[in-house]
Every structure is written in C-alpha cells, then in structure tokens.
C-alpha cells in the first residue's frame, strides 16, 4: 500500500484524475496571477516607491513634505526645462477667503477663464478651465437654457453672463462624498485635493451641484514654454492622469497676499476678492451694501462665492 501511494505522484501513466485536475488548476492559477501582476512590473519604472508609499497630505511632517516638494520640483524641471518651483502654501491665520461677482458689469469676455487656463496649467487640447461662463437669458437664472460655448461678440442683446467656478462651500458636498478624504476644506475656506491621494472615483464631481470639479481624463498636455513655473502642491502643479482637480482661489497667489488670476484678468472689475473676516475689506463692503445672492441656496451648501447686481 505504501509503495503504491508513492507511485501515485504525478508521473505519466500513474496519474489519477484528481491530481491531474489539481495540477491543471494550479497551472492556470499561476498563469492568471502572472498576467494579473504584469502591469505591476511595467509600472515600476515610472512610479517610485516613495511616491507609492507617500502619506496623506495632512499626515506629512515638514521634512517629508520638503522631500516631496523637492522631488516634484525636480520632475517638473526635467519635464519642462523651466525654473519650476513647487511650494506648499499654508493658509494664513485669521483669513477666510470670499469672492463676489457683479453680474451687471460682467460682459462675458471669458478673460477670467482664459487666465485660469494658463495660471493653473490646464490641458491645452481640451482648453480646460476652472471657470465656465454661462450666457443666460435676462429675466431668470435657468442654467438649462444657459450656453457655455457661445462664440459671438459679447455682450449680446438680452443676455447676461454668469461665470461659475468652485463656490468653496462652507458645507461642501464634494468633501462629504469623497470615500478616502482626498479632498477637504482648509481653514481659509478653500477646498483642496491631494492629487497623490485621489483615486479618481469621481464621486465628488457627481456630488458638486455647481459642476465645478474637473477630471483629468488624460495627463494634461502643455507646451513646456507655456507652463506657469509658480506652483503649489495643492493647486496648480502638474496633475497626473486620473485625478480630480478644482479651483483653489489660486491659493498659490492668494496665500501670498496676491489677487487670484481671474480677478486680475477681468477687464471690467466685475470681481471682488478678499478676507471675509476683515470688516474693512472690499468683499465685506459688497456683502454689506449690495444685494448679494448665492447659487442654489436651497441646497444648504453655504457658498463663499457671491453674485450681485448693481440695481
């Protein structure tokens, strides 16, 4: 009996059915596993372990952050040949940003969207921007009848223009929708995304009632000489394919005390930006003296982006 059992090892001629099935399944399993991990071997060239094992933005200590910024700066310089500097701009204590837009003055020239396109290193082929300017029929606010792709001289008769970008909601639905906390609200009210943490599930895009979030369907293509070299980790640095991005009120500018790019580009001065906590700021004057409203107030998102009319 013992000798017979020894011979029943998978040797040709002495194989029983069960062993053959086991061996077959094992071979298939091995082949499937090899196929499954194949992309892993193909990836290792471009994705280094530091990046793969990188912690969440809010768990990084200063030396770790500095290492990451150095790596990102090196990569961006190698790729673009520009003197790119990737910084990590922290919120200014005692500052909560607010934005207001005068619909009576806006002429729909899209200069703001164009400035955003360049400032934030957006994909050139799709002509992406964080601002969408709607041409609206006077007499109501019906976005279904709004047109964001108009191509005629502006302002057109009986139309008004409504630029829509991230409203930096105090009660942001996108932040709640994210399953992995890759997007959150900073103390200055800006909702940001850690592009290295985002898994690209696009739940936040679906949750946003203002359609303010953009998905990188491909790696943004920008001619190297057009890249804006003043970059920040949470805002306009090069984004990888497959992550969400959004307006950050140009935090790489505004956290240095500067105006957002869209405001500087506005030829009519329809845009007012400032610190909501400073009672002497321009934005507070607008809130105190103009008839302001917010978009989709009934949703309870509490936007920090206000619209107003002159009359």
């Amino acid at each position, binding site marked *: 009996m013992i000798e017979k059992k020894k011979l029943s090892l998978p040797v040709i001629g002495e194989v029983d059915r069960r062993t053959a099935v086991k061996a077959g399944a094992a071979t298939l399993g091995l082949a499937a596993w090899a196929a499954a991990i194949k992309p892993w071997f193909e990836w290792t060239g471009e994705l280094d372990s530091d990046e793969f094992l990188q912690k969440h933005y809010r768990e990084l200590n200063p030396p770790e952050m500095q290492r990451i910024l150095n790596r990102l700066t090196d990569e961006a310089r190698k790729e673009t040949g520009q003197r790119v500097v990737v910084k990590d701009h922290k919120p*200014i204590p005692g500052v909560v940003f607010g934005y*207001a837009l*005068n619909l009576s*003055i806006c*002429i*729909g*020239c*899209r*200069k703001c*969207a*164009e400035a955003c396109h360049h400032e934030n290193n957006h994909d050139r*082929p*799709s*002509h*992406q*921007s964080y601002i*969408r*300017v709607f041409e609206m029929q006077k007499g109501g606010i019906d976005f279904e009848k709004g047109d*964001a*792709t*108009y*191509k*005629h*001289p*502006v*302002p057109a008769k009986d139309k008004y223009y409504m630029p829509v970008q991230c409203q930096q909601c105090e009660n942001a639905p996108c932040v709640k929708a994210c399953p992995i906390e890759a997007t959150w609200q900073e103390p200055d009210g800006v909702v940001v995304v850690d592009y290295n943490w985002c898994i690209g599930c696009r739940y936040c895009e679906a949750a946003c009632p203002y359609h303010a979030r953009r998905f990188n*369907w491909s790696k943004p293509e920008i001619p190297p000489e057009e890249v804006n070299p003043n970059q920040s980790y949470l805002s306009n640095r090069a984004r990888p394919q497959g992550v969400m991005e959004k307006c950050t009120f140009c935090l790489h500018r*505004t956290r*240095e*005390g*500067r*105006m957002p790019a869209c*405001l*500087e580009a*506005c*030829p*009519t*001065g329809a845009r*007012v*930006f*400032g*610190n909501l906590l400073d009672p*002497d*700021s*321009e934005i507070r*004057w*607008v809130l105190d*003296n*103009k008839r302001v409203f917010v978009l989709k107030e009934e949703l309870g998102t509490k936007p920090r982006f206000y619209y107003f009319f*002159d009359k």
Partner: protein
Amino acid sequence: MPCFSNTARSNACKRRLAILVAAIAVMCAGTAQLTTGCAPNPHTSPEESGTISSDESKKESFPVTIRKPAGPPTIKTGALDEKGNPIAIACATCHTTKPANAEAKLGTPLPLFHQGLVGKHGNLSCVSCHNAAEGYGSLRLADGKSVPYTEVMTLCAQCHGPQFRDYQHGAHGGMTGHWDLTKGGRVRNNCVDCHDPHAPKYPTVMPAQGPNDRFLNKGGHD
C-alpha cells in the same frame, strides 16, 4: 573658587559689555532692515500714488496706485516732420485764437481738426468737460473749476456717483496686485482706461476661446 585679579575681572566685564553692544547693534540693524522691507514701494512716485478711500488707509503699508491718463491730449495735424514722424499740436495752438462754440456736441461735424470724432455720451457739449477758458488744456468741472486731465476721475464722478462709490470700495474697475495691502501694493485702472470718454459704453468684444467639449471633438465618445 578661582580668584580673579582686578585687571582680569575688568577685562571680562569689558568683553561682556562689548558683546552686549554688538548684539544691540545687530538687533537695531535687523529692525531697520525690516522696516525698510515693509516701506512703500520706492518706485512709485507720490504723484502717481493716490490712496483712494479713508477706510482703506488704516493698516496698509503698501500704496494703491491709480493709473493716470497722460496730460492734455494733442491733435495730429496730418503733416510729417523731416524725420517722418507725425506732427501733433496742443489744443491751445488753435483754441487760443478761435472762440469756443458752446453749441457743439458729439455728433456736431467738426471738419477742421476733430474729423471722425463720434460717440455717445448723454447730451453733453464739448465745453461741458473741456475747459475753453484755459485753451482746452484742462478739464472743467460743473461748477466752472478747472481740473487737470490727469484728474479725470474727479470730472467723471460728478455724474457717475454710484460707479465712483463702487470704485472707491474696490467693486468697480479692473485692478492687479494684492488683496492684502500689508504684503504688497495694487494698481487700479482709472475711468478712461476702459471707457472712451466720448463713447463710454463698454465696447462689444469677441470672447476668449471656450472649452472644447470632450464629447463633440475627436477622440471622445461618439
């Protein structure tokens, strides 16, 4: 316990004093540098900078500069000098000898020099804003006072009060620079940077390129 001689002790005292003096000097220099670092931009001449409203001037250390138009305008005569440059003359060249036509308005044909000057600006006559009494070299306020061309906003504000009020509070007119005036200055447009004084309605423009719809262009879904 070590016993110092008198001279050794006084040497040590002197050294300590010297270190203290040096430290104070360094601190003073540091403060001085800091203050100069926050001082208003030296490139902006006082003529150029006009701080606009009183409530903005509390804690700011950088100026809000309002762009100013060039001085009195000149008129091209159509003739060229020997280098081929057009010859332009000041208003007073003609207007010192010619009496002002109080009736002339935008739309009144002015065949001699102001050909093609058309526009729409209420029911104003030329001398509503141009100061005939000073050879048209300055502007004229409604009360007859003279105001230089560089102070054109004072003139506009007489009628356009709400716009001027909004402007004073940063809610009208394009600007560049800093929202936080403790970190940097700001440059603001004046009225005539954007509005042609003879036809102040903002002109119709072609918009910048809009987004390319992913679904309508090549490479997208059909």
